[in-house]
């Protein structure tokens, strides 16, 4: 497993300042060290580390911060993988774990897409024919061929549109 150094001070500040799991989750996801964590470690590794840090005997405050970081990193992984992994850890002994897991699953990467075919209509553009003339004239432009877009379907409001060539 690659060693990833987390932004201890920034993440500790977020945990102290967090008044709700939603606020903490949003801020953790924005942190670059959490994003690097997500890119370097696999889903089982992240879930295992989150569990280990939360289960530590005489757990320190920093252990708790790390457990949250590994949990937040899971939200960058495919939703089905995360759901499968978290089945092994139904009761993480850490504050707000149930709410965080809900947020992770809502935000995890969707693997289900709705494919929409867009057929652009020929557009009419009304504009000045030339800069020196005040006469308006209709100018018709040709359009591109059909555009296929993939819209991820998940529980989250965020919509990521992926254009296909």
């Amino acid at each position, binding site marked *: 497993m690659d060693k990833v150094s987390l932004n201890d*001070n920034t993440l*500790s500040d977020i945990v102290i300042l967090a*008044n709700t799991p939603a606020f903490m989750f949003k801020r953790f996801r924005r942190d670059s060290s959490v994003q690097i964590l997500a890119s370097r470690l696999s889903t089982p590794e992240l879930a295992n580390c989150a569990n280990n840090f939360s289960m530590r005997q005489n757990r320190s405050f920093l252990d708790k911060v790390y457990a949250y970081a590994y949990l937040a990193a899971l939200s960058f992984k495919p939703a089905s993988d995360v759901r499968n992994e978290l089945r092994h850890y139904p*009761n993480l*002994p850490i504050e707000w774990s149930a709410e965080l897991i809900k947020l992770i699953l809502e935000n995890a990467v969707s693997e289900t897409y709705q494919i929409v075919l867009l057929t652009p209509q020929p557009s009419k553009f009304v504009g000045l024919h030339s800069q020196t003339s005040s006469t308006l004239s209709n100018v018709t432009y040709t359009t591109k061929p059909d555009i296929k877009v993939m819209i991820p379907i998940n529980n989250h409001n965020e919509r990521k549109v992926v254009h296909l060539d």
Partner: protein
Amino acid sequence: MPRRDLTRPWEIQLELETAKGNHIENVQTSEPIPIGTINGFESRFRRLFPNIVERTQRATGKYNCHGMVFASRRTQIYEPQLLRQILSEDGYTKISENYILPGDIALYVSDSGQIDHSAVVVERPPAEAFAKIPKVFSKWGAWVEVIHLANECPWAQEVGTTIEYYRMV
């Protein structure tokens, strides 16, 4: 009687209801934060917000900002969507910023409509002020209660956040 989930013995949930008698999920925890961690946090945040006044002295996670405003400092209300239910079922009315009075409640609403933070107004903005920014006090996470201008806190600095004011009339 406080409720205790046997799978989570470190947490206690209080009987907390709206005026209409509907239960509000809440949690009381007492996990301490090491003094060294708190000291580091304080020095960083005092630099970021030099005008704040700490109203209480001891950092505690027993209650959060919403618990301070809506549950008398006894517990944390951690589900933001429950706050809309409280506003509706307890009979709060939205107030224009031109008519703010001490005792009104300030809610920090994100661009997605979620209530991220809450505070209590302690001083109305001067009548002649162009920007109607009152002085409020609020609980900053597991730290202390802080007196600050409504726009001088981490939640107000989130892009897209607006502040709404409410009063129980």
